[in-house]
């Protein structure tokens, strides 16, 4: 790779040189500036070479996996995909020099062959890439002459690179959707969707326990308790955040002097910048015991990981979302509306309540919906401060669990990818994505529908 870069740098210098020489020797006019010719030569040498290199790097393992099958015994080849995957893993252990006990002879043979292929592949790759970069550069270099429009070519390549990077966003989305969707489909093959969507009980078990029939109850995968828990905690968070956030926004937008605004606004935004793991630590260590002791002094039974504690802290976290979004919306209400209200003799608060807020309402609702989607997707606070027991409960003093905290609990650590328990996390993630995207879509629609009413 480094060699390729060096070669392309050399071609850059050569291309630029020859173009300069052309310009100074000849009476004719060079179409493009010399350094474009240099870049052209460099690009023609580097791009195809890097492409070849990448193809070899990615392709070689696939090819070797295919070849390695010749070494597999009959029963592995006739088995299902899992058997083959295990066989491959054994071979790769041999390659990496990790051995667990006795190695079967065919595995050893396959591993040795693989190492041999690998050594050959490096030689082939090196020489091929080198050759491609030299030849490619030479071809590009030979094309340089007075009339050659290297700038146009270079710019076209650049444009394609820009388009390529914009496509990363699409690729990421596709990646997310595919990874979640495939595993969810596999999950729904094991567990019927209606059981998952409407089941009232969540009790995942490892596949191994089921297979062995060692009891421990049957696994049930009903997502209702978790969504109830999620929305319970979000609701608590919103009851904290909406009044505080909204009144802060009104105060900052309508009453505060620029000086106070300049101090308070960044301070509020610090709340949004604090990492969620810090909030989680704070919730688990300070707020939860406090809620418990207050509740017990009032004679209430409070779980030590109550939904209330997690919800309160989450509410603090989303205050800045609501306040800064509503602040923007309130500021966007035209001054003429306020002036008209004042002109009719209303006080400031009357103007705010009866004119500004109704005008800003769609934006405020959108802000609240965005805050909900934020709360639903929030992970660390609930992992650290909410419980894991999937109680179907609307009581804020009970321990409840949420979608995100279940995902984390299931997927942290080692997991076997065939078990319904692991796959259930992907199905939960699918539901989570659908929920948050739907919320965002609604927020967007509300804003779109009412936006230009006052312009």
């Amino acid at each position, binding site marked *: 790779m480094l060699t390729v870069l060096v070669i392309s740098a050399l071609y850059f210098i050569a291309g630029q040189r020859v173009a300069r020489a052309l310009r100074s020797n000849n009476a004719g006019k060079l179409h493009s500036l010399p350094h474009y010719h240099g870049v052209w030569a460099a690009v023609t040498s580097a791009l195809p070479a890097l492409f070849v290199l990448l193809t070899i790097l990615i392709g070689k393992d696939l090819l070797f996996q295919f070849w390695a099958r010749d070494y597999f015994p009959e029963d592995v080849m006739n088995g299902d995909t899992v058997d083959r995957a295990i066989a491959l893993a054994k071979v790769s252990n041999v390659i990496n020099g990790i051995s667990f006990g006795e190695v079967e002879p065919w595995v050893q043979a396959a591993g040795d062959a693989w190492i041999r292929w690998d050594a050959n592949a490096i030689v082939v790759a090196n020489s091929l890439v080198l050759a491609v970069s030299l030849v490619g550069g030479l071809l590009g270099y030979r094309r340089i002459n007075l009339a050659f429009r290297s700038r146009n070519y270079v710019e076209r390549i650049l444009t394609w690179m820009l388009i390529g990077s914009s496509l*990363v966003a699409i690729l990421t989305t596709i990646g997310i959707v595919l990874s979640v969707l495939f595993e969810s489909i596999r999950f729904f093959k094991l567990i019927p969707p209606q059981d998952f969507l409407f089941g009232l009980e969540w009790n995942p078990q490892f596949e191994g326990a089921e297979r062995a029939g060692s009891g421990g109850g049957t696994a049930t995968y009903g997502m209702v308790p978790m969504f109830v828990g999620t929305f319970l905690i979000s609701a608590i968070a919103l009851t904290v955040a909406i009044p*505080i956030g909204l009144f802060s926004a*009104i105060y900052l937008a309508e009453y505060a002097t620029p000086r106070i605004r300049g101090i308070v606004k960044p301070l509020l935004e610090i709340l949004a910048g604090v990492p969620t793991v810090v909030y989680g630590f704070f919730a688990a260590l300070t707020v939860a015991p406090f809620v418990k002791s207050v509740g017990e002094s009032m004679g209430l039974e409070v779980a030590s990981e109550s939904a209330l504690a997690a919800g309160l802290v989450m509410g603090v976290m989303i205050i800045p979302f609501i306040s800064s979004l509503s602040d923007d919306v309130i500021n966007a209400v035209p001054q003429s509306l306020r002036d008209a209200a004042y002109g009719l003799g209303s006080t400031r608060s009357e103007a705010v309540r009866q004119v500004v807020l109704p005008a800003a309402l769609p934006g405020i609702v959108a802000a609240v919906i965005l805050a909900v989607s934020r709360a639903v997707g929030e992970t660390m606070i609930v992992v650290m401060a909410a419980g894991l027991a999937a109680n179907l409960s609307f009581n804020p003093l009970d321990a409840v669990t949420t979608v995100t905290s279940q995902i984390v609990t299931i997927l942290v650590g080692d997991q076997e990818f065939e078990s319904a328990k692991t796959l259930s*996390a*992907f199905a939960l993630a699918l539901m989570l994505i659908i929920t948050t995207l739907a919320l965002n879509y609604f927020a967007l629609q509300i804003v779109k529908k009412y936006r230009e009413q006052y312009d």
Partner: protein
Amino acid sequence: MTDRTYQRLDPQQAAERVKASINLRKRKETRFLWLGKTAVAIALGFLVLLFAGILSKGIPGLFQYYVTLDVRLDARQLDPSGQMTVESLAGGDFDGAILTSLYEALGNPEGRKEKREARRLISSGSSQRLMNYVLDNPEQLESMVSIQFAVDDDVDTFLRGLISRETPEADRRISDQLIGYIDALEAEGRISYEISDYLFFGSASRDAEMAGIRGALVGSILTLLVCIVIAFPLGVATAVYLEEMAPKNRLTEIIEININNLAAVPSVVFGIMGLAIFIVAFGMPRSIPLVGGIVLALMTLPTIIISSRAAIRAVPPSIRDAALGVGASKMQTIMHHVLPLAMPGMLTGTIIGMAQALGETAPLLMIGMVAFIVDVPGGVTDPGTVLPVQIFMWADFAERMFVQKTSAAIIVLLAFLISMNAAAILLRKKLERRW
């Protein structure tokens, strides 16, 4: 419009009515203002509470108790084969040397039980510490040196006054005998309270007194490096394309919708994608900063793209027109004029995105960065962990001293975040241009 008939008031009556309602309206006005002020005060109160809680626990966490012991560095005992290498020192009896001097400082206790209690006083990492000292100062062999050793985490907790002497002996983690030893050492002035060197130079450890954040800090830096190398060029390129060159067609629209959707996806979902694609499908190893950085880069990409687009949009069209007017191509205009002018805004957005990535925990849990890793990662493909994940893991440990260590780690993390954000604000102030 309505059938309501209005009562006609003469001016006198109207004035009286207004006068009567004015007080009420004024009171309402004051109440409303106070509601707003209270809301701001409550929000700021939460902020103060949060920081006070963390600082009050975390600042003591930056310090820990040490006991100073006079150790005789006996070459035959410590380095039996006499080569002064790590291997030869591994054969030396450092524990013995430390314990001898510890017993000496305690007035040579007799009996197994007493000695056992005395051994509980110092950290189990003391022999390692002495070994490092000898490696660094080989010329001091055969002499008497006084070295500070960390005390055990239970002893540390006791010295902070978090374990009460009044608690019955069976209920507390340290015995009366041990308390007697501690008092004796304290009376001799051997116990000191100093800035914890383990916190900054130690790595993950199950023993609270030796646990440090160095590994996590290095892991965080490596992860952020990967993240910025991927996210910055991609984000800027995307922003340039969408703002300057993209035709108004379906593809552009899809890209824009995609970016907005990505910004709304919960971070834990990015972790799931990383797990399914990079680890399961591509077979990359778990818990390496490379995968973590890629996942975080994809997560911060929308932030960077959106702020970069805003920065490009802020460059006035007259600049572009001027460049195009003197014969520059579209690409030259962008590269030579638009990008340099938009760079401060882009950098600010990138720093904010990086701060977001630095504090992110959930996606990294998904790709297995919770592994218990003692070694400091040396490169992006070495297993490692990051600061927020370290905080998450420590928060789960039961030992009391970990609470302080966790808070101290949080202080370090917040210090990084605040300085990054401050840098972003300064950069914006300094380079911002009004057109």
